[in-house]
């Protein structure tokens, strides 16, 4: 377990993607089969055990420690697995050699419920604190180190010099510990392939539209759709099963059993926007957010936050790859497919007809409905190409809302920004003349502006709380954001979507910054329609 524990430890503290990839590559290069495969499966969430409930771990540790000292320790550390791993009293002589990761995996598959507590205690006795932590996280199903399955595939692709899309295709045909996959990557075997298992295909992405670009584009060449404020998903359905993938290739099927059920029996690969829709209206993004990152979903959540897919592209019709076809042909096929299959929990994202860019600009400016972020422009002849090719697709977001807010707190960033105060909490005035925080922005500024803000913050600090500085309430920031939503998780009662620093308003006195009432007026999900 120790090499695996070391890997976990490094991954957990390494925020940079490049560092995570380097750590994964080192693991792939240095650990033998089947340990490396089990390790990759465990960190990317493909291998989850629920052999132990927290209650069992607590009971085991209670037999071995003073309850008062355990209580103080738990209060101090804050995490049960970590407290137990640190406080566990190692016997003077371990009961046997420390188990390896493959031994743990094998034993978990065969052990009976009655034997498990004694086995676990023996394991904990023979491991050191960091390996105990890894073991407890593994058996309670909670290894979370910010590594997605996609990142594992990218690391494999980089390590073996293979196209990551080829790994995506082979992936569904192997299972942990991926022996056939490694055999293929190392030239010892054929590429694992399985015709019908759902496979993630990297989606086609759009570039932001600069309005100056429009002059060179012929409106007749482009189709427009609304840009929905949900989650881009790829829905795969076929004889081998159904799956829902996020834009990054994360398998999110388990969190959306309602949508997965609707896909069953179909045969296609579809591109669309996952939304919560109630009474025909798209709910604010925050409602969809509540359904994310769940391993199981309560029936109440399913009822109150019903999800669906708004379709806008077709990658496979049946077993036929149609990605090479021009957009117009794919669209015609998609429309015909929807008519024929009339699948529940899916509808078509309509095309927005227009004749000139001016007309489209007016439509965009008028769209203030919740759930619409702006427009998508797609070239009528564009094939479906993975990645972000320049030219065929554009996203044209609606103009952001803008407020003038006062900088209240600043926090250090991470990674390359760790020496800069780069996360800014800003607030607006209440009617009582008090500043309330309404959001946090950590992008939008240039490097030069960041350096300026960093210097300003250091020179105007009034208090420090660890990595956070409270500053004089005298600097106005123009904050742009895409939407304002009511929120009971924020003291101000309002949450902003994608807030960013538009400008530094050194010209504006703080007292003239905006008021909370002005921000609340922009809220789109007011329930009191009256």
């Amino acid at each position, binding site marked *: 377990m120790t090499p695996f524990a070391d890997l976990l430890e490094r991954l957990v*503290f390494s925020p940079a993607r490049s560092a995570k990839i380097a750590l994964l590559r080192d693991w792939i290069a240095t650990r033998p089969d089947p340990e490396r495969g089990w390790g990759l499966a465990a960190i990317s969430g493909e291998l989850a055990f629920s052999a132990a409930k927290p209650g069992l771990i607590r009971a085991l540790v209670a037999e071995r420690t003073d309850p008062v000292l355990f209580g103080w320790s738990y209060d101090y*550390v804050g995490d049960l697995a970590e407290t137990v791993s640190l406080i566990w009293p190692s016997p003077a002589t371990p009961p046997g050699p420390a188990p390896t990761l493959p031994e743990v995996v094998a034993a978990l598959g065969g052990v009976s419920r009655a034997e498990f507590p004694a086995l676990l205690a023996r394991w904990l006795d023979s491991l050191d*604190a960091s390996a105990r932590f890894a073991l407890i996280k593994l058996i309670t199903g909670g290894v979370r180190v910010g590594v997605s399955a996609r990142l594992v595939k990218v690391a494999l692709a980089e390590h073996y010099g293979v196209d990551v899309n080829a790994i995506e295709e082979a992936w569904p045909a192997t299972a942990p510990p991926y022996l056939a996959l490694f055999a293929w990557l190392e030239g010892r075997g054929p590429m694992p392939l399985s015709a019908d298992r759902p496979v993630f295909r990297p989606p086609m992405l759009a570039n932001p539209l600069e309005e100056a670009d429009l002059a060179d584009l012929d409106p007749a060449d482009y189709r427009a759709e609304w840009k929905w404020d949900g989650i881009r998903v790829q829905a795969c359905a076929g004889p081998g099963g159904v799956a829902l993938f996020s834009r990054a290739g994360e398998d999110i099927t388990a969190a959306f059993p309602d949508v997965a059920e609707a896909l069953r029996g179909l045969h296609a690969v579809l591109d669309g926007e996952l939304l919560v829709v109630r009474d025909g209206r798209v709910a604010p993004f925050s409602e969809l957010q509540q359904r994310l990152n769940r391993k199981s979903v309560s029936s109440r959540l399913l009822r109150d936050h019903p999800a669906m897919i708004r379709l806008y592209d077709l990658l496979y019709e049946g077993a036929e790859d149609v990605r090479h076809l021009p957009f117009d042909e794919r669209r015609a096929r998609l429309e015909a497919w929807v008519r024929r299959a009339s699948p529940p929990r899916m509808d078509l994202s309509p095309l927005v007809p227009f004749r000139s860019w001016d007309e489209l600009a007016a439509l965009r400016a008028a769209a203030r409905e919740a759930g619409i972020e702006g427009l998508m422009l797609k070239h009528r002849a564009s094939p479906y190409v993975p990645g972000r090719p320049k030219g065929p697709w554009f996203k044209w977001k609606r103009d952001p809302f803008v407020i003038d807010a006062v900088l209240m707190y600043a926090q250090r960033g991470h990674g390359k920004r760790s020496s800069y105060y780069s996360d800014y909490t800003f607030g607006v005035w209440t009617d009582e003349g008090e500043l309330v925080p309404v959001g946090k922005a950590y992008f939008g500024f240039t490097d030069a502006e960041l350096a300026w803000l960093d210097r300003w913050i250091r020179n105007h600090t009034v208090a420090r709380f660890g990595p956070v500085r409270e500053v004089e309430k005298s600097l106005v920031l123009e904050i742009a954001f895409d939407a304002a939503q009511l929120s009971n998780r924020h003291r101000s009662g309002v949450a902003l979507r994608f807030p960013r620093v538009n400008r530094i308003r050194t010209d504006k006195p703080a007292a003239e910054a905006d008021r909370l009432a002005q921000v609340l007026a922009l809220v789109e999900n007011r329930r009191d329609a009256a």
Partner: protein
Amino acid sequence: MTPHPETWLSVRPEGLYCEPADLFIDPARAVPRALITHAHSDHARPGHGAVLATPETLALMTRRLGEGRAGLTQQPLAYGESLDVNGVRITLFPAGHVLGSAQVLLEWRGVRVVITGDYCPRPQPTCAPFAPIPCDLLVTEATFALPVFRHPLAEGEIARLLRSLALFPDRTHVVGAYALGKAQRLIALLRGAGYDAPIFLHGALFPLIEVYRAFGHDFGDLRPATAADKSALRGALVIAPPGAIQDRWARRLHDPVVALASGWMRVRQRAKSRGVELPLVISDHADWDELNATAELSGAREVWVTHGREEALIHALAARGIRGRALSLVGRGEEDEGGGPEALPAGEVAA
């Protein structure tokens, strides 16, 4: 009838006071007569009249506080030698914490009191080794007095650092370490592990390195990080005070891996909240097992706890029939790990 230590050893606003010898031990403010266990700033304050300490501690104090501020008069007392002050016999023994750090044995009218100061029972390459001293009353620190603090072997942590250097050969590895004690120990451990490349130091570390060198410690090739150009720091090891590793000073480094050497790094949330990428659990303090073992080996029937997590240690000692008392001395833990991560200087440290 021997007098109970409570009748001649007391806590005053200035700190722990020995009445018959008329001196304070590690007082928190300037006093006429002070006995100093070691040169960390929360134990060695400026402006005392007379200072009694080991020669190493006097040299370190003088270097840090300046001539004349580390006691108007200084009296050195080497380890193992005794001094009679108004009938109180004072002997200093190695505490294993930093160069010159001492445990204090006070003997008066047949009663033996040991004040550990900050201590570390594991042998260290840069200071004389700690040994427990039999006594009637033990006055101990309790910085890491929770059973979650069991320090791993420092050599293992150094091996993790060296593995990381091999894994990220282009990145500067910057290790936060306190200027007095931790930095020197880290360098000695690295040299002991066979790392013989130049080690680059933040400018604030050199004055104390010179004192260690004057007492015969060799650290190999040390160079100022400030003078090195950015490409020379590619893949290099840099040691700096904890306050500098993520601040403006660190911008000169090449895509740094930020490491921090401290006993607090045992707790993940502490490492995370500091933004540390490579936490190294290396402590100059006794861990939980060592605090308990030291109390037991001293044979003391009573233990006073100066600072740290008194309640847990006192609870554990009570289970063994040892009476504990919390002194709650103020002003401790402002330097070195004693203060915990919250007390780490968040601001700039002059290069």
